[in-house]
């Protein structure tokens, strides 16, 4: 089993003709994902390596039945691309784009209220259900099908954790990158809830970062709801306050959003914490034995 995406997901790529969009659509298709359409305004009727192109998301959906969109559109236009997907009533929008202005995302969130579409990201590596579907930029080959769920704000740090898990024979059910931006479509709680209900997931790895309070809120939720073991790591314990550490959302402001506060919240919630990024896989082994 899995959460969010699987073998039957039908994916349309927005921004398919750009450098990122074209490269990753090819990679995802090679992995086995149903990359069935692309949106490139003005190029409707043309093709990209056999994938039909459309002028709009709704046209793509109508002709191909696409139910998931992955967005590689540049920052000035990405918020609009998300809203277009939501308006076309797709099931899922996965926005890879980094650099979307915060106020644009505020508008997107307001636009999305009451609408069906789930947004993952922005500024995220995407979602993968190993062995079934890969939608995003993560390296498919380090993932192994299995029963550990992974949810993370990070990109390469997630791959590091997945790599450790795979080496120990702990395959993954689904891995979700929720992204590094301060305002996003799907947060830790949403994914933990899905993993909690997923019959194919036994335990979850949760990777957080400094900035904001998403991890603390997730820990409150975990305390009251989570029935499966959670292993947690927070990066940025060594980061200076007030500086944006790469990700727009990774900033300690006014003394809050520190790694330490998040580690403490995790410990209080019964999360199996590791303070070393090199021991995430090992900690999961320990957690599963208990």
């Amino acid at each position: 089993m899995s959460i969010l995406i699987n073998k039957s997901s039908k994916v349309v790529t927005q921004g398919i003709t750009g450098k990122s969009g074209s490269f990753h659509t090819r990679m995802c298709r090679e992995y086995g994902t149903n990359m069935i359409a692309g949106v490139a305004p003005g190029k409707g009727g043309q093709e990209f390596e056999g994938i039909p192109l459309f002028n709009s998301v709704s046209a793509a959906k109508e002709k191909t039945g696409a139910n998931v969109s992955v967005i590689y559109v540049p920052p000035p236009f990405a918020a609009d691309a998300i809203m277009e997907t939501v308006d076309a009533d797709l099931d899922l929008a996965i926005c890879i784009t980094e650099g979307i202005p915060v106020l644009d995302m505020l508008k997107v969130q307001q636009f999305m209220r009451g609408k069906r579409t789930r947004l993952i990201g922005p500024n995220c590596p995407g979602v993968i259900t190993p062995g079934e579907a890969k939608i995003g930029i993560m390296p498919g080959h380090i993932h192994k099908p299995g029963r550990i769920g992974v949810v993370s704000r990070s990109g390469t740090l997630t791959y590091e954790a997945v790599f450790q898990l795979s080496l120990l024979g702990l395959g993954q059910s689904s891995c979700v990158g929720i992204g590094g931006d301060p305002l996003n479509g799907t947060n830790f709680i949403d994914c933990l809830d899905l993993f909690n209900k997923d019959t194919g997931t036994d335990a979850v790895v949760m990777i957080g970062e400094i900035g904001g309070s998403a991890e603390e809120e997730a820990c409150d939720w975990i305390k009251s709801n989570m029935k499966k073991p959670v292993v947690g790591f927070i990066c940025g314990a060594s980061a200076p306050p007030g500086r944006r550490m790469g990700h727009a959302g990774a900033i300690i402001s006014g003394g809050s959003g520190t790694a330490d506060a998040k580690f403490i919240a995790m410990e209080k919630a019964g999360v199996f914490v590791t303070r070393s990024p090199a021991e995430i896989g090992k900690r999961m082994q320990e957690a599963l034995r208990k």
Partner: protein
Amino acid sequence: MNLHEYQAKHVLSGYGLPISDGVLCYTPGEAEAAADALGGGVCVVKAQVHAGGRGKAGGVKVAKTPADARIAAEKILGMTLVTPQTGAAGKKVHKVYVEQGCNIAKEFYLSMVVDRARRSVAIVASKEGGMDIEEVAHSNPEKIITLSVNLAVGVAAFQVQQLGAAYGLDSAATKKLRSVVEGLYRAFVDNDFAMLEINPLVLTADGEFVVLDAKVAVDDNALFRHPELRAMMDYDEVDSKDLRASKAGLSYIALDGNIGCMVNGAGLAMATMDIIQQKGGSPANFLDVGGGATRETVTEAFKILLSDSQVKGILVNIFGGIMKCDVIAQGIIEAARELSVKVPLVVRLQGTNVELGKELLSKSGLNIQPAETMDEAATKIVSSVKK
């Protein structure tokens, strides 16, 4: 991106906000002339640096005459201001803003920020103006009110009433407050501010409001659509390595330690700094070479790391997903050769084409210590640097 007080006030003045006249000055002579041009009466000489707490540190002085303004400017210009926000090194003052004085009756606090938890623009207000708001939040949180602004509605009239009540204003003053708050909000949204802090928002003895100080941070992600704001970047306030890195498309932050780090991905870069610290070492920087880095970018990254004289060793931790390990290895080899790297270099590669990458490194003839895991890599670099 941070704006200086004088720049923030320039932007805000376009929104009909009550801002005193002021002149930017680089020399004591200019300060005296400015005080004179402002009417020769009471004025305030303020250091222009990207940090709060200037007043307590001696960076803000009241001058009763133009001659006093010259004396104040003499003291402030060239001084190194150390405030809780500048860090121990402090910030050198290159310019001052000479502003017309006003008759302060009351001081309030008003700020606007994109509030992640509430998913809205939040207005934070307190009757305790002129003070450190974090102090107030800590000791008297009940003195702070926070309002969420609805994007479609803007600042509602009932919210202005709430602010007026929080400030203890009568209805006449609350009426005047309305245009101030609405103007600030429009400036915030129009210019993609991430944070706007007015501390203090003054009520004068004549019952008028004055925006006496303004601290603004613009959303970096939005600078592409505000070229006039981007042009306000103060290069004196940015570390030269940070600047060089951003020109090369790298994300770099200089820190205090001696172990240079080169990593792909912000989360992994932070985690690498963390594990170095755990092993008893001290990271010299945060550096994310990003997902699309080329051989050239890797070379440039190396150059920036090596330009930091404090760097006594370098740890490269690259997880090659999109980035292929052999490409990274090429970049490392070429850079290390070109720059004759003398400091210990530990390289940990994983991911796409990892075996090819490792092979290239081992055959390069360079003194590179390989590592399999992050743990091994951090342990090796920390002990190499301690020798």
